[in-house]
């Protein structure tokens, strides 16, 4: 997420949210040097999670890769399967209704999965939310309140229908099975951020409905 994320920028909060989701999405991918380098280069200000903790927890890259495989990739039984369908529909099935629903959601929004993983992979879902927030920011800049409102709804819908429902479970699995500290921290950070963000979003939407302040006022509100 390029672009200046200076503190004085009116929509810094939103930009930070978008950037955080994107970063989290990154972290669930296989840990390669450039990803880790990217993580190292991230400026704390621009992210709404404790990235420094993550940075310290990286440690030896090879171990990370082993742990990542154990948790998310296999070949044996996945310790923390990164697919919504596993948690939401039934214990061990992949590519069920949830996947199709998420796929339809992406397609309607004009995006598609670019990695050879089912649509409900956690990295894809995190990135999709970050896209929704980025579009909302654009709508904010264009002053199109109606569009902003629309995207806030869409974010909330996606979090409540999909990501929000299983983030805690995957986090628990990661906490139980992860050997490296990195994935422990990642689990906590992801769960707290996603659930916190979902909550904040809910409050803001109620505030929008109950009062008539415009979106601007509402978003300018509380810090993280």
């Amino acid at each position: 997420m390029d672009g200046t994320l200076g503190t004085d920028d009116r929509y810094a909060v939103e930009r930070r949210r978008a950037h955080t989701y994107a970063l989290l999405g990154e972290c669930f991918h296989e840990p390669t040097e450039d990803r880790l380098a990217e993580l190292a280069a991230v400026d704390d200000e621009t992210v709404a999670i404790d990235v420094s903790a993550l940075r310290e927890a990286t440690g030896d890259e090879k171990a990370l890769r082993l742990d990542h495989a154990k948790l998310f990739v296999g070949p044996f039984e996945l310790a923390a399967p990164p697919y919504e369908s596993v948690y939401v529909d039934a214990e061990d099935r992949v590519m069920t209704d949830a996947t199709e629903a998420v796929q339809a959601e992406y397609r309607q929004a004009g995006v598609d999965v670019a990695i050879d993983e089912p649509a409900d992979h956690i990295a894809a879902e995190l990135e999709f939310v970050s896209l929704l927030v980025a579009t909302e920011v654009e709508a904010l800049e264009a002053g199109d309140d109606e569009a902003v409102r629309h995207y806030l709804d869409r974010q909330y819908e996606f979090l409540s229908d999909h990501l929000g429902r299983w983030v805690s479970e995957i986090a628990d699995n990661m906490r139980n099975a992860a050997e490296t500290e990195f994935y422990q921290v990642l689990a906590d950070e992801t769960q707290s951020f996603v659930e916190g963000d979902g909550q904040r979003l809910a409050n803001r939407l109620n505030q929008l409905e109950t009062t008539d302040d415009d979106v601007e006022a509402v978003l300018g509100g509380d810090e993280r």
Partner: protein
Amino acid sequence: MSQHDTTNDTDADEGRRFGLSVGRRDFMKAGAVGAVAASMGTGLTSLASTAEAGGTRDALVEHTGDWKPSTCAGCTSWCSAQILVDDQTNRVIRTRGHEDSKIHGKNDCPRQDLAIQQLYDPDRITQPMKRTNPEKGKDVDPEFEPISWEEAIDMLADEIAELRENEEPEKFMVTRGRYTYLRPILYSYLPQIIGSPNNISHSAICAEAEKFGPMYTEGEWAYRQYDVTESRYVLAWGADPISTNRQVSHYSNEFGDLLDQATVAVVEPRLSSTASKSDEWLPVEPGQDGALASAMAHVILRDGLWHREFVGEFADGENRFVPDKQVDPDTFEESENSQGVVEWWNEELSDKDPEWAAERAGVPADQIERVATEFADAGSRAISWLGGGPVMQVRGSYAAMAIHALNGLVGSVGNRGGTLYAPGTATEDLPAPDEYVDEVAEEGLDNEKIDQRGRLEFPALKDGESGGGVVTNNAADGILDEDPNEIKVLISYWNNFAFSNPESQRWEEALAKIPFHATIETHASETAWFADLILPATHHQFERWGQLRSTGNGYRTINLHTPVLADDPDDPEDVLENGRLWDVKTDETEIPYLLAESLADKGFDNLLEFFDEEFPDPDSGTTLREEYAGDDFRSRELRAQAFSRNAIKLRTQPMWDPAYRNGDYDWPGGEEFDSWEAFRERGIWHTEKWEYRHRWPSEGGEFGTDSGVFEFDGETLRNALEGHADRHDTDVDTVLDVCNYQGRVDDEDAPNAFVPHYEEPYGMGDAESYPFKFVDHKDRLNREGRSANTTWLHEFRDVNPGDEPNKDVTKINPRDAAELGLEDGDPIVIRSPAGEIESEAKLWEGVRPGTVAKTWGQGHWAYGQVAAEEFGEAARGGSNNMVIGADYDRLSGSSVYYGDVQVAIEKR
């Protein structure tokens, strides 16, 4: 929020398969996320916008792409069009009529859609090519090699510069086929500045004779439009308005209603599309249309059905137009609007009754009587629709006058439901090159033209002037006989004369004779086969600037051609970058400009000065040099493209520049735009609607004839003929004799030379050895000879009544076929004094016995893999022009296609 939740209401948002899952409005928002994703590009890891992900689309191109204005020059209707360009792949998807056009709206005839197969035709020339085999001949492979634009233009400039050094500029020649109204740059000014009088247009092989009738009755050398929405009777002479020529889209759209509100009669030797839907079909013997016209005029006058206000009345009201009786002119009071009806009766009509005509034309006398009467009963809302058939014949001029004069008899000239012209348009003439013409050029321009127009045997009386009109097909003889002079350098653009001229074999020899020939066209056509240089042209409907016009429904519209593939057509960089499919250029503007630059390098800079001085951007005033200063070839190309843009802006300036409009320009009325962008975006401009009867002298108007009124006695023709005779210090009778007409000035047993009259058709070939008359007619899907390489033309060929898909059949009446022992599908040979072609017999009742009908358009032996059987070797089907001899309706200069072509049919 994250308990085990087995219930998930997925069906709610699961897209209903067929329901309107994404209404148009939310669609807009959905696309936005995709757009953001697309803009982030590599920033994403797991997702990508559906466009890039190559996934399927979620909206019709009609909703995402945009309709850009342009014009279709598939036939002379020149419909204003809108082109749908896909936003994701910048690909042309569809073309339709321009929705704002008051003439045809979104309706476009099928020809317009063939253009897309032309644009994406693999056989299009993609870059300039040079001939490497110096030998030229029909079965000699030119062995074309690709070369760069710079080299090609330089080669051409060398040739022209050499002519100028040897002070023989008249040996330079330009031929033009189709065009836009930016044509003066390449067709008139370039040869004028170089110094050659030899710029030859295609008009005489189109339908100049069709203009002869209105010129010498009403003083208007032009095509007409017909007020079908208000008409009550349409009598079409060889015209097939729902199928070809001059506003097919409008007339097709209106034809259903026309059949309800009017009676339609068609005079045509074969059952044409219009004839098959009309009330009456008069299957005239080819060449005898004039007899029907005279007989119908006879009936109208005999029964007192003429239009009193327009023609006049007998002083005492008693109708003295009695068959075989002369009428005393003093007893008839002519109206202010016309003159000479009595003289027309006395000199021509008095003895031309329906029986007389039935014998010659093979149409029953009672049908002639009925049609004439009902035509006249419709009063001034009757149309005598002049087509090319009856007039592009050896003695066609007088038939044209007679047919058009019928409109005068019933007062439908310029009247509601009658024959109209076009209201004035607000185009501006391009700047004239006079100060840039040096003495060498002046000298060259004095020479006689290569088509020998104006000679005794070629009056070509366009606009009343001896030698005023072009005699296109005779240019071939001029080249072959080197009379008046040899031609050394030829630029041919947007034409295929070696295919589209009668007896086209002569053009093959003539082109082979010319030392250096550069052709500007889209395909390797028959003409290009003899060229030394092929400069690939842009496709007019999608890739260039230009302007044409449509006439119909009482309006005339000015239609823009715009480079639709470029996002910003005004930006030369963008147009050169993605405005064209291949490395192609515009014939009428870019190539002349590059030529001018190259000629300047060689010391002859008049042309370049003219272009640089006279063609600044009228909007901003910046000159071409200021816009792009560099002298490398890339900058020249950019200047050439800017030059094209400036030229079209100059041509249409009054319409979009309020200051210019309100300046000293006499504004004829019509739509007003206040910026070039607004006008360019719209791409179409309307005149005011035609004001009925405004030219009638009785309403304060004036006709263009010498007498200022509608002439039944041919006074203007008399002056023109006498002018031509004086020029050759001889008399009118000798002129008419030399030109193979029967009319004489005052000779009892010959028709009067000046009034509209019947002349016996002149058969090319004796009737014994060539017993059949050849009826050549147009193809509904032919884009003036340029669409033979599209597969759709062949797959849907049977839209021409009697034709077969994927074939080039000759339609023969079953009775004639029985005599010849021919069955359906037999291979045959058609032979005439001029040549022979092969075809296949199709037994069809819709053809008059004694004639054979064949659609024009096939018989290409080059052009492309679909058009030719074997590219460069074998023709697919037979080209009608190989059997139609080269003869002329000399008064109008038109080539002859109909009425007189005698052929023999044999089984192969």
